């Protein structure tokens, strides 16, 4: 193996193992900044020794053992004389003396530590961008440069963000633990928010650009899946994973030949990734099997699943989607959700039913400048044969949209209605 090959292997191994190592160290030293530094020392040792001596058969175990030694040295050397730390040091030394082959036993502990790390990196005391950067760094194994490229931010900005985040966690004495009881729900919501933020950043990135960005979807999916195995009793975790798997399943169908977005109903379903759909449906089933009412992510996943199950657009179970949007609206009342519900109701029960719901939204100030409301109303009116009113709505929608292509499409629809009204057949 050439030196370059070894380095590439080390990079890959680090990407795979670093989160677990940092997590285990954070448990020992109670400071994730210090944990990361100590973990880096193990990486440096690997970079120094492996090119000559060869990559060890169990590289993860080698790194973990090396990192733990550094941590113990640090604890002793810095004479953290508080009895707690001494005792901790002794306890860990004793554990160390056990044959390293007890991978399975240690595995559970590392799993717990990994969960602690996830919750700590996503602590709500940190601003969202800091949580995202810290999570990608400590749990995704991305370098600062990679994170910066992924988010189109300057590298020094991201580096500072991470430094400040670690400092904040230390200053606020955020404990390295998994939250319990009443705290858990809110803290878990914070974690899921971070993961979904990462996913969306990747999902909305257009292809043809830097591949670092769409790859964020894979990072988010991996983190979600890891979390799902660490917290198998949490339905919203499975719900989020399901949502991401199913959304990701459409990535090859989402863009047209010129890079323009293709609406879900117009997408070539042959390009939907059935492997991811299968995984998404399985994750959704896990969420549903845990019982109780579906949460926000699970509901959105269930809606996505309805589309995923339909082999063609006409086969879509719109009635079910309408019911799911209703549940979603009750849980998270939002005019946008209500509008989506109106569309689903119209598909299931006809445009008059949809229009009734859409009309109720016209007085909502939040939707005053939302071009999709008049666009949707225009669609219903056209289907009901009320062409003059429909045309006016499409023109209103065209005036409200920022997107040139959408504006053109809306004006085209208005124009076509004009022709219909004038009795011209095309």
């Amino acid at each position: 193996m050439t030196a370059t090959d070894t380095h590439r292997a080390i990079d890959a191994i680090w990407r795979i193992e670093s989160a677990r190592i940092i997590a285990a160290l954070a448990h020992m030293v109670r400071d994730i900044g210090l944990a990361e530094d100590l973990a880096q020392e193990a990486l440096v040792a690997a970079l120094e020794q492996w090119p000559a001596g060869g990559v060890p058969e169990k590289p993860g175990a080698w790194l973990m053992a090396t990192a733990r030694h550094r941590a113990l040295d640090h604890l002793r050397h810095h004479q953290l004389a508080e009895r707690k730390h001494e005792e901790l040091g002794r306890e860990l030394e004793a554990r160390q003396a056990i044959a390293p082959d007890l991978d399975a036993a240690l595995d559970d502990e590392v799993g717990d530590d990994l969960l602690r790390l996830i919750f700590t990196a996503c602590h709500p005391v940190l601003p969202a961008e800091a949580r995202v950067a810290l999570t990608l760094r400590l749990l995704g194994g991305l370098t600062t440069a990679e994170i910066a490229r992924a988010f189109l931010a300057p590298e020094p900005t991201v580096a500072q963000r991470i430094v400040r985040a670690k400092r904040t966690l230390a200053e606020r004495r955020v404990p390295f633990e998994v939250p319990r009881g009443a705290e858990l729900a809110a803290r878990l919501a914070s974690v899921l928010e971070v993961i979904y933020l990462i996913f969306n950043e990747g999902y909305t990135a257009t292809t043809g650009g830097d591949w670092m960005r769409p790859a964020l979807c894979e990072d988010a999916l991996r983190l979600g899946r890891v979390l799902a195995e660490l917290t198998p009793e949490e339905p919203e975790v499975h719900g989020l994973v399901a949502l991401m798997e199913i959304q990701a399943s459409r990535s090859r169908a989402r863009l047209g030949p010129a890079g323009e977005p293709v609406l879900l109903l117009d997408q070539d379903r042959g390009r939907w990734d059935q492997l991811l759909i299968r995984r998404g449906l399985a994750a959704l089933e896990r969420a549903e099997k845990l019982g109780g009412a579906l949460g926000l992510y699970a509901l959105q996943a269930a809606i996505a699943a309805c589309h995923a199950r339909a082999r063609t657009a006409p086969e879509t179970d719109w009635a079910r989607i309408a019911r799911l949007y209703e549940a979603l609206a009750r849980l998270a009342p939002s005019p946008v959700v209500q509008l989506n519900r109106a569309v689903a109701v119209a598909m299931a029960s006809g445009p008059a039913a949809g229009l009734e719901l859409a009309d109720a939204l016209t007085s909502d100030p939040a939707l005053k400048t939302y071009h999709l409301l008049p666009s949707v109303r225009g669609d219903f009116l056209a289907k009901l044969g009320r062409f003059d009113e429909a045309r006016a709505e499409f023109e209103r929608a065209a005036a409200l949209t920022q997107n040139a292509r959408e504006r053109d499409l809306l004006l085209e629809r208005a124009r076509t209605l004009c022709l219909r009204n004038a009795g011209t057949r095309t």
Partner: protein
Amino acid sequence: MRFLSIYKTAERTSPPTQEEIARMGALVQEGMKAGYLLAVEGCLPTALGARIRRSEGKLTVTDGPFTESKEVVGGLAIIQANSKEEAIERVKQFLSFAGEGECELRQLSEAGQNTQAQGAARS
């Protein structure tokens, strides 16, 4: 990036033991926990399978077992990885559990993606 890993090994002469089944189950669990294992399947004995070849316009079907083959396909996995090196590490872990044999690792084509550019971006 996605990779296909095809595991080839000498055909078993007896069904797997409880211990072997448990070990393979644990291995799959590990893959799930680490979030990179997208799909995994194991093959039943070649006696239940067949080989179909098309050559010079002629189709030939040969039923198993394939006793003359030193190694046969034992199973497959589809892995998510950021690089070929990462996929190799995953496969190494698998083989350290699975025992003797060879995994052929192939990057899967993902429509609409320039795989070379991706490789460069994430290395």
